[in-house]
């Protein structure tokens, strides 16, 4: 038995050695959660696609860097960054003071507003005030959403966290939550466009809640990498390529100011 165990251990060790070849220093490992159409998703053939994926490719091409994209689930994406499994989070993440304390970030890529999605037949005459005291769904672990909901609905707001927007909207359909809070781009593109939902009020763009817009995130001390990517981002935004991608995926130019 010991023989079998030790040979298994040996096989595992060899496997590890083979599976982790020393990689060239210049390949930038980028993790992205491709489960959010149209930001990032997977085509029927298994290839990643979407706004963020195209933008990353455009930037890497611009700065002539070799980029390795991998599909990392949102739940583990910051752990993956901290442990060095990836060098950059390619999912665009809201810049907040708390996050900027722990991580480095790229320049602002675009700004989004926050809104509350409700069913089309819901009574929205009182706007956001009408949602007070009712259960509100949002994406679990997204601190800026929690702060916003507490800010407008009170500290004791009944917030339910979901892993994905789809799970939250399924519960909205089922009546378990009164509204689903998320960003206006996602809500507009994915749900309001179906004609079954609407916003409870105009989306908020107050920097107090939406922060400094969305950006890519890096480990602390990645100054060189941030500089290189930012240079590429500046060029891609200035050339109008970013707007082109915005029109392609969101039917709108993005607020990059």
């Amino acid at each position, binding site marked *: 038995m010991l023989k079998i165990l030790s040979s*298994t251990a040996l096989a595992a060790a060899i496997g*590890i050695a083979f599976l982790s070849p*020393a*990689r060239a220093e210049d390949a930038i490992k980028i993790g992205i959660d491709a*489960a959010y*159409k149209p930001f990032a998703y997977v085509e029927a053939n298994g290839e990643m696609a979407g706004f963020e994926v195209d933008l990353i490719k455009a930037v890497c091409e611009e700065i002539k860097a070799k980029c390795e994209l991998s599909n990392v689930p949102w739940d583990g994406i910051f*752990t993956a960054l901290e442990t060095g499994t990836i060098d950059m989070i390619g999912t665009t993440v809201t810049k907040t003071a708390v996050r900027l304390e722990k991580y480095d970030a790229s320049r602002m890529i675009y700004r989004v507003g926050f809104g509350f999605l409700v069913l089309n037949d819901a009574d929205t005459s009182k706007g956001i005030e009408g949602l007070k005291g009712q259960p509100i769904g949002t994406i679990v672990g997204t601190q800026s959403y929690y702060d916003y909901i507490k800010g407008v609905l009170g500290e004791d707001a009944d917030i339910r966290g979901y892993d*994905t927007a*789809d799970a939250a909207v399924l519960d909205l359909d089922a009546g378990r939550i009164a509204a689903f809070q998320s960003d206006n781009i996602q809500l507009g593109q994915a749900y309001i466009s179906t004609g079954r939902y609407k916003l409870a009020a105009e989306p908020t763009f107050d920097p107090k809640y939406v922060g400094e817009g969305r950006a890519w995130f890096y480990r602390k001390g990645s100054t060189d990498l941030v500089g290189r990517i930012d240079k590429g981002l500046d060029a891609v935004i200035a050339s109008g390529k970013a707007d082109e991608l915005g029109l392609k995926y969101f039917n709108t130019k993005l607020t990059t100011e």
Partner: protein
Amino acid sequence: MIEIVAPYMSFWLEGAALTLGLSAVSFPVALLIGLAVAFATVSPSRVVSLAAAAYINIFRGLPEIIVIFVVFYGSTIVLKALAAPLGITVGGINPVLAATVALSIQFGSYAAVIFKDWMAVFPKGYTEAGLAIGMTRSRIRRRIVVPLLMRSATPALGNLFLVMLKISALASLIGVAELSRTTGIIAGSTREPLVCYLIAAVMYLAISAIAGFVQYRFEAFVERTR
């Protein structure tokens, strides 16, 4: 609705195959670990039996998700720390390998308890008979104890396999594109979550049915050889 998700079928089946493959590889390793640990608990050496008891108590008590995270991220940190002084950069271990290791280690502890309990109820006469005809301890284990153990433990081990199939969904959190993760990706990419999760449920049931059938045939085979 089906037309929207249908093009994803081959991507999806790859996920289902990975779910089945993860358990199909981890389970035999878990059984080997379980057997080794079960024998270690009855070892005359106090150090060995204490180590076996510690292994069982630690891994039976830890949530699977933590073991998976520690194996995957922990090994990356350790590898990086070891490689840094040598001046080489390592990419970290493959998530599928990490999940296989984590599942094998964790389920090894469950299997060990199943084997240990069955060993405890074996009549002493079996081993005494072996000794009487001059078999060595290790030969008694190989020829008598292990075959009898496998036979009596099959129903419990079949259950354990089904649990492993479902627990393996946690591997999705470290980026293994198994059935749960591919379903999540397809749901997010097609905006048809209900259909996607229904199809995934059918796939999980199909995999369990296959596993159940294999177990049934194995039990029937064991019954015939009695």
